[in-house]
């Protein structure tokens, strides 16, 4: 962080929040954030309570900033932090707040609304003769994903990739407001089905911290196990889809089957194949059945064996640009399986939930999904959710995928897209 940046933040007024205080900057100081800073990492931006909020990571800890809106306007961060562009567009569509000098003012989730952009869909023009564009989606692929991709091609190579999103916008944040944390947890669990535990956990941790409580030790241990297993299943899904895209159909089927066997074991241990609705603020909604642990550990061991084949030279060659990420996900699955097995063997006894007091407070909760850190910001007033925001790693992966696609052909891009495993529902909210 530059000295100027540090002075800006150091002089800000603070308000209590967990795990770090909220620093409230005057609008003229906020405007200077737009210059960017190489040492901090942008995570998310949202509007709440007539303020613009931003979450950064700096020196391994969160940096939580806010500034009052002036006539429903604030200084855009997107000129210095490219990842902020999506959040500024989303904030405009959700609240009407305008980001001054924003790098991108296209609608995010409000398709074809009069006054926002009459020409929607609008993509960046092709740079000249010889370039052409191809659209794909929102109904494409054998199992469809709700997004539209627009490829600008230079011959057979991708010159630019843009996404049009908003097809999976369900209004999740509005549904969570005004509810008790326990009732809102059902929505947190349905932001992304492949990261239902991670989202429910980030939300529960935020609600617990805002209420000044914690989950009991048995619940904490089980949550960690569930989170690890969910990450393994997500790794297996991504690896199976990537193997299929590479034409390794047998390997894809084997990976899919070990994933399905974990799901069957999870149904026995936790009562749900995806562990949906189990993590709730205060602890867990149901206890695990230890007599079914052997089937789960056997399924995890089978998964560890199945992903080892990704390391073979012949497989790596066919995975092309997706190979480094595929290897990382395979290694991660092996490590997580070992950790989960050990944790299952050392599960503490005791209760699985604490009651959540009807508190007032503000907190950020985080949980690691297979694709990165998920953050939930929760503001409680007398035990009700006054406001909430959700940051999924897909908001960071999508621009990374767009950048990485440049120079690839369609086949190689398909591999990369599968190993990224982006959840569009978690971006659209």
């Amino acid at each position, binding site marked *: 962080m530059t000295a100027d940046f540090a002075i800006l933040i150091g002089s800000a007024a603070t308000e209590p929040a967990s795990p770090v205080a909220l620093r409230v900057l005057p609008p003229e100081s906020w405007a200077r954030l737009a210059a960017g800073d190489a040492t901090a990492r942008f995570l998310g931006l949202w509007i709440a309570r007539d303020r613009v909020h931003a979450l950064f990571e700096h020196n391994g800890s969160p940096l939580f900033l806010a500034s009052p809106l002036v006539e429903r306007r604030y200084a855009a961060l997107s000129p210095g932090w490219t990842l902020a562009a999506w959040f500024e567009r989303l904030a405009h569509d959700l609240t009407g707040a305008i980001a001054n000098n924003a790098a991108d003012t296209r609608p995010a989730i409000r398709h074809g609304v009069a006054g926002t952009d009459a020409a929607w869909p609008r993509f960046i023009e092709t740079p000249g003769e010889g370039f052409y564009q191809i659209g794909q989606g929102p109904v494409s692929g054998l199992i469809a994903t*709700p997004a539209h991709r627009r490829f600008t091609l230079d011959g057979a190579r991708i010159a630019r990739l843009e996404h049009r999103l908003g097809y999976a916008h369900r209004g999740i944040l*509005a549904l969570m407001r005004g509810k008790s944390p326990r009732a809102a947890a059902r929505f947190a669990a349905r932001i992304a089905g492949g990261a239902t535990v991670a989202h429910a956990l980030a939300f529960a941790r935020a609600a617990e911290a805002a209420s000044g409580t914690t989950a009991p030790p048995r619940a904490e241990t089980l949550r960690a196990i569930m989170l690890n297993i969910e990450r393994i299943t997500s790794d297996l899904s991504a690896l199976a889809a990537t193997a299929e895209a590479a034409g390794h159909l047998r390997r894809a089927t084997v990976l899919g089957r070990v994933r399905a066997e974990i799901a069957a074991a999870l149904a026995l241990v936790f009562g*749900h194949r995806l562990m949906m609705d189990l993590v709730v603020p205060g602890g867990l909604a149901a206890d695990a059945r230890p007599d079914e642990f052997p089937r789960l550990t056997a399924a995890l061991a089978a998964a560890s064996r199945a992903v080892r084949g990704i390391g073979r030279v012949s497989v790596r060659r066919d995975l092309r640009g997706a190979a480094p990420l595929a290897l990382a996900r395979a290694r991660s699955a092996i490590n997580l399986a070992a950790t989960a097995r050990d944790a299952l063997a050392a599960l503490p006894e005791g209760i699985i939930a604490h009651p959540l007091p009807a508190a007032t407070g503000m907190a950020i909760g985080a949980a690691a999904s297979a694709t990165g850190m998920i953050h939930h910001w929760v503001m409680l007033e007398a035990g009700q959710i006054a406001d909430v925001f959700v940051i999924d790693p897909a908001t960071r992966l999508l621009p990374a995928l767009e950048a990485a696609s440049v120079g690839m052909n369609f086949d190689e891009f398909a591999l990369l897209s599968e190993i990224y495993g982006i959840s569009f529902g978690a971006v659209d909210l």
Partner: protein
Amino acid sequence: MNPDPDPATPDSTVRVLAERLAASGQALLGRSLAVRHVDAGSCGGCEIELAAVRVLRDGLSRSGITFTDDPRAADVLLITGVATTNLAEAAQRTLAAMAPPRFVVAMGDCAVDGGVFKGSAPVLGGAERILPVDLLIAGCPPTPRQIIAGLLALLEANAAPVRRTPRRIEPKA
């Protein structure tokens, strides 16, 4: 907590259902049931279980379902997720591109009636709000067994109109 009504179906049960579905498809269509999937605003949970259905093959017995990219080649439009305003037109255009006889299956609680998202401003509700639905498969998400059982029921209930392959005509003696 939404308990899975079918937590521990033995693989053999699913396999028997899949074999029946494959046999029905062979008898009625001369091939597997071709499915065009549309995600109308799903969290991705239903898609995980669809992927599980796709790997249910076991040697000679196949799940009896193939997923197809091409709406024209599809018998079934399988819709998952709550019907969002933004995806309604794309879903309707996909159905319009399908050749009759065609069926619409709404899979998962969101597609059945909007599920937990019922009443939210940017959603229309269940799949019935945008398309004529022939079959509902409830569950959040439905298990592979429920998905296959649902598609089997659809195929068996519509035995006559689905028939496309001409009956073999025996030469007269």
